């Protein structure tokens, strides 16, 4: 077991493309850190740098006490689960799991014991003699996990391990990965582009964009206090409504908006953020410090437990989404007034997208 720390890590490819810019992340022993971001944000590159599959241009990567920048992947005491599983197609499940151990000169009976143990945990004991091609996607995924477990590494690295599974299996495996990681207590780094997967798995969530860290912290911190419009729109589904507002006498000013007193909008205007799920239908007058939005309903999606209401606000044509509990019976075309409490309002700078205020 070990903590993983990255300090001022950069990756510049030959040709000058800077894939990872100056990243500092510290992952405590036994924690699961999720790197999330859109494709091309450098999250996989960062993971591969920890694995030793990519060189580190600058900065230090430490696993436990030692700096591992110059170690071969096999000497870093890590195990990696790949998106396409990367099982050896000509080896049986047993051999796939045992291969790494054999290369390390682990005694035969020890290998046997570890593989059987991993197979028991992952419930793949009946398949040990099969070749990967005779397994389903979910089973292959388990074998890939097994190959990582038997090594008893200091760090698990997951590179979008659930992307090739269907939706139902993905949720099931997500829960299992979390349980397994807890049970084994191995420090893990997990890369995904799925924000829901990221939210549910992470102890530490790192949102990346264009090679740098937008924000890191506990998933709920990121949800409640997004540091930028990027994080605000990336975490949470449907994404946070971002409304450009001007500075009024007592708060934000925009067509269709009322209230919001107490929000310190700078003179040049700002971006107001409010999550769809924090809106409720306003039945009476909206308190001064809460935000009131009136807009014509353009579309309604009722999914049973909740209803998504879409509509353009104040002539700008910008669409906002409200996520209302239960079956809100609203007809397209009719106007609706919604309100959001003061503590659910976020303000971001227009130019940088950074959070303003607490």
């Amino acid at each position: 077991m070990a903590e993983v720390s990255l300090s001022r890590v950069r990756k510049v490819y030959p040709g000058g493309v800077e894939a990872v810019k100056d990243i500092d992340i510290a992952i405590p022993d036994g924690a699961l850190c999720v790197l999330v971001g859109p494709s091309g944000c450098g999250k996989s590159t960062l993971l591969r740098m920890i694995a030793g599959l990519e060189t580190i241009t600058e900065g230090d990567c430490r696993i436990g006490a030692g700096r591992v920048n110059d170690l071969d992947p096999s000497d870093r005491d890590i195990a990696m689960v790949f998106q396409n599983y990367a099982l050896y197609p000509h080896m049986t499940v047993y051999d796939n799991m045992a291969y790494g151990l054999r290369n390390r000169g682990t005694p035969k009976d020890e290998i046997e014991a570890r593989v059987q143990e991993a197979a028991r945990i992952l419930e793949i004991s009946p398949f040990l003699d099969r070749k990967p091609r005779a397994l389903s996607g979910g089973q292959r995924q388990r074998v890939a996990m097994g190959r990582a477990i038997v090594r008893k590494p200091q760090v698990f690295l997951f590179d979008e391990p659930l992307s090739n599974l269907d939706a139902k299996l993905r949720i099931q495996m997500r829960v299992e990965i979390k349980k397994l990681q807890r049970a084994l207590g191995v420090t893990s780094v997990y890369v995904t582009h799925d924000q829901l997967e990221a939210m549910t798995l992470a102890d530490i969530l790192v949102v990346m964009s264009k090679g740098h860290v937008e924000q890191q912290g506990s998933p709920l911190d990121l949800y409640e206090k997004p540091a930028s419009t990027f994080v605000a729109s990336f975490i949470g589904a449907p994404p946070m409504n971002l409304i450009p507002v001007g500075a009024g006498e007592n708060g934000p000013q925009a067509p269709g908006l009322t209230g919001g007193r107490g929000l310190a909008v700078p003179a040049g205007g700002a971006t107001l953020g409010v999550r769809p799920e924090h809106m409720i239908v306003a039945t009476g007058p909206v308190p001064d410090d809460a935000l009131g939005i009136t807009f014509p309903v353009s579309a309604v999606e009722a999914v049973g437990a909740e209803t998504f209401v879409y509509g353009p606000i104040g002539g700008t044509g910008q669409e906002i989404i409200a996520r209302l509990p239960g079956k809100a019976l609203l007809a397209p075309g009719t106007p609706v007034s919604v309100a959001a409490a003061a503590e659910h309002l976020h303000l971001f700078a227009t130019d940088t997208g950074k959070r303003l205020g607490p």
Partner: protein
Amino acid sequence: MAAQLDTPMTKSVRRDWVPHLVIAIGIFITAFPLWVAFVASTLSNPEIAQAPMPLLPGDRAAANYGEALWQGGRSGRIMTPPVWEMMFNSTVMALSIAVGKIIISILSAYAVVFFRFPFRMAFFWMIFITLMLPVEVRIVPTIQVITNLNMMNTYAGLTIPLIASATATLLFRQFFLTIPDELVEAAKIDGAGPMKFFRDVVLPLSVTNIAALFVILFLYGWNQYLWPLLIGTDARMQTIVIGMSKMIDSAGGPTDWNMVMATAILALLPPVLVVVLMQRWFVKGLVETEK
């Protein structure tokens, strides 16, 4: 309705016999010369000379094949060595070429695909353009080199110049490119070095390709004519393909056609054996898309 009902039957009958007839004709055209050769190899020379030649096997099969295999042929004043000697030469040559080509080309393809070294692509293209230099084109300089190295009338001289193979390198390269990068990386993390990865992963995955190539290259080696003709000046170094042509060619002298035919049939056997034994692998190697 009735007419419509019985058309499918008529059609299916026709559908059955037309292709069969075509196939039968095809087989007849292909197999007939082989049959004639076989029949001729069981007759005596005067029997072959009569017109028309009998189309049923004669009674001299054992005698003819025995004589061809162990005593060697004679046409005019030219003596040819016993067939078993020539077949041995041919086998050594075909096997060396096939095995040598596979070893050289799989290693060079492995280097070109999995390693990053300076001028990697330049080396690949250098190998690639040798496709434009078949034996026939470079035969004069190659002969000179072999002579200077004192490799005339040796197995080394017979096989080494034919071993380098751009085609096989290309084939292996294309196959290696289909091996996903993640597999290489997984092996790195599993602690497998380059040669270990080659032995434990690449080689087992290439088995079907190797088998397919082996068949093709064995036939290529077995059928070589020009190169062994120039290198094997000594009768003891003759391959069977050369030997056979020498049995026929004699300035107007009588040719022992039954001996020639027996030799031809014997010369056919090893390639046929290789194809039959390796057919399953061969087809798999050519059609397999699974990684």
